[in-house]
């Protein structure tokens, strides 16, 4: 089995349907239901991108549309698309993805030299301010290289082979977001006999509830989602729009949605539009969009292996993927304890939970459960920096080189909402008590 980081069971993926895909020329295997990101993690691939300016190694940071790091190019001939978030790209048979903004390869990137020149490249540095050497001939020589450094991926060069269509729709209630709240709202509205449209950006309804172990009305999360979606789909007055993002709300409850009709298919069927623009006039709009986690800044929090706490939980629960072998969870609230428990359950060695709050504030049910599960909790502490496993100076690329050699990431680590997180086991030594803020922002 090639997916070394796939858990033997669990997850909301179709294990009977194995898919092969390619990333930077290497062949991997995943399952239907995976995203590109979860399939890469299942194969132990953490280094997937380079940052825009300093070409710092970047890994998979989130599990959804909020992904800032894992931007890849999908190679599909005339349909090639740059800057696709690996966390939202659905896996399909034969998918070919490549890294971008690196030369000659993702592992060995000359552009990373920019990091050593960073004192000379202030924020907002603009290449046309390059004034030396001052002759036009010299400019014509080096302009090529400077221009090549700009931009991330490559745009398609052939004409767009696809068609796009518009659709107008009217409904009494438009529900934006198909998670627990959205589905419950849609079911409540539909039960009164009104026309309902439910849209969700994901391929599957359920949102953050997918793969979770919570119960609703005494039913397991997955069973509840399935039953609710089945009820809604059976109702002729309800329209379910998966893979549809609402991107605008205008006067008079006019909402604009974009439906990605064929983007997830290996070869789109003929006479099918690629995307559909919906203009929906709704009697009422329910925004059940959920929330994104916010990371706490600390030095080197962009090292591959660093991940939002909720994202780590999603990879374990929804995709049955271990995002690493060892983890430290850094948080300032209770929700990350659920991640710590999920990671432990998945067989990941959780080095501890670093919590910025004082001991007295850790009385919630999740911290109690974490203690009962034997997790180490470090209250009143924050992570100030993440170090590479080789103890190289901060900011070096050593994490991924070590990972590649060993074939496994040395450590994963999870942030919490508004929480930071450590990246390596060593970062534990950098934990200080009492918390002391040090200005540390991720490099651009």
């Amino acid at each position, binding site marked *: 089995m090639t997916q070394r980081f796939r858990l033997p069971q669990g997850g909301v993926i179709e294990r009977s349907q194995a898919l092969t895909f390619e990333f930077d020329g290497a062949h991997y295997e995943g399952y239907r239901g995976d995203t590109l990101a979860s399939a890469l993690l299942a194969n132990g691939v953490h280094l997937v991108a380079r940052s825009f300016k300093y070409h710092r190694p970047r890994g998979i940071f989130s599990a959804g549309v909020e992904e800032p790091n894992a931007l890849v190019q999908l190679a599909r001939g005339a349909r090639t698309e740059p800057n696709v978030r690996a966390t939202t790209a659905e896996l399909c048979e034969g998918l070919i993805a490549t890294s971008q903004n690196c030369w000659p390869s993702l592992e060995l990137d000359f552009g990373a030299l920019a990091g050593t020149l960073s004192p000379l490249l202030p924020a907002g540095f603009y290449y046309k301010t390059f004034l030396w050497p001052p002759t036009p001939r010299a400019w014509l020589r080096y302009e090529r290289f400077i221009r090549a450094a700009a931009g991330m991926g490559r745009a398609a060069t052939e004409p767009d082979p696809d068609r796009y269509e518009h659709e107008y729709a009217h409904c009494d209630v438009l529900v934006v977001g198909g998670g627990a709240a959205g589905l419950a709202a849609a079911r409540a509205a539909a039960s009164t006999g009104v026309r309902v449209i439910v849209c969700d950006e994901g391929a599957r309804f359920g949102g953050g509830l997918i793969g979770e172990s919570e119960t609703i009305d005494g039913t397991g999360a997955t069973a509840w989602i399935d039953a609710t979606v089945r009820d809604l789909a059976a109702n002729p007055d309800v329209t379910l729009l998966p893979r549809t993002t609402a991107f605008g709300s*205008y*006067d*008079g409850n*006019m909402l604009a949605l974009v439906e990605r009709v064929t983007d997830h298919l290996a070869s789109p069927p003929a006479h099918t539009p690629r995307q559909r623009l919906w*203009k929906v*006039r709704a009697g009422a709009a329910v925004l059940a969009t959920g929330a994104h986690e916010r990371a706490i800044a600390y030095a080197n929090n962009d090292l591959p292996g660093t991940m939002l706490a909720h994202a780590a939980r999603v990879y374990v629960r929804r995709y049955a993927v271990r995002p690493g072998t060892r983890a430290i969870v850094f948080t300032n609230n209770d929700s990350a304890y659920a991640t710590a428990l999920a990671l432990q359950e998945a067989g990941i060695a959780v080095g501890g939970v670093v919590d910025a709050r004082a001991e007295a504030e850790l009385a919630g049910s999740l911290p109690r459960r974490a203690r009962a599960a034997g997790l180490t909790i470090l209250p009143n502490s924050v992570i100030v920096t993440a170090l590479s496993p080789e103890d190289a100076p901060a900011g070096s690329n050593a994490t991924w080189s070590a990972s590649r050699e060993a074939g496994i990431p040395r450590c994963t680590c999870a942030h919490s909402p508004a929480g930071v997180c450590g990246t390596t086991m060593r970062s534990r030594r950098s934990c200080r008590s009492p918390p002391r803020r040090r200005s540390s922002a991720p490099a651009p």
Partner: protein
Amino acid sequence: MLLISCPWCGPRAQSEFTYGGDATVKRPPLDADEAVWAEFVYLRDNPAGPHEELWQHSAGCRQWLRVRRDTRTHEIVDSAPPRASPRDDR
């Protein structure tokens, strides 16, 4: 997009309508002062709040209508046939 209620067709999208300008201005007599004419041709109030406007349902029944719209909230307060408004006597 605004939802404008046409007195003949019911609520319709703004894209079916054409804006016809301020409904409160009244054409002066032909022999009026140049200053009066200049005001009629060029000068308009720009109220922050309810505004009387003329719209034509150009992609529908093609009737003109008088719409009261709040310029701050874009709320369509009221709409009526052009001559049915109480302010028509101005």
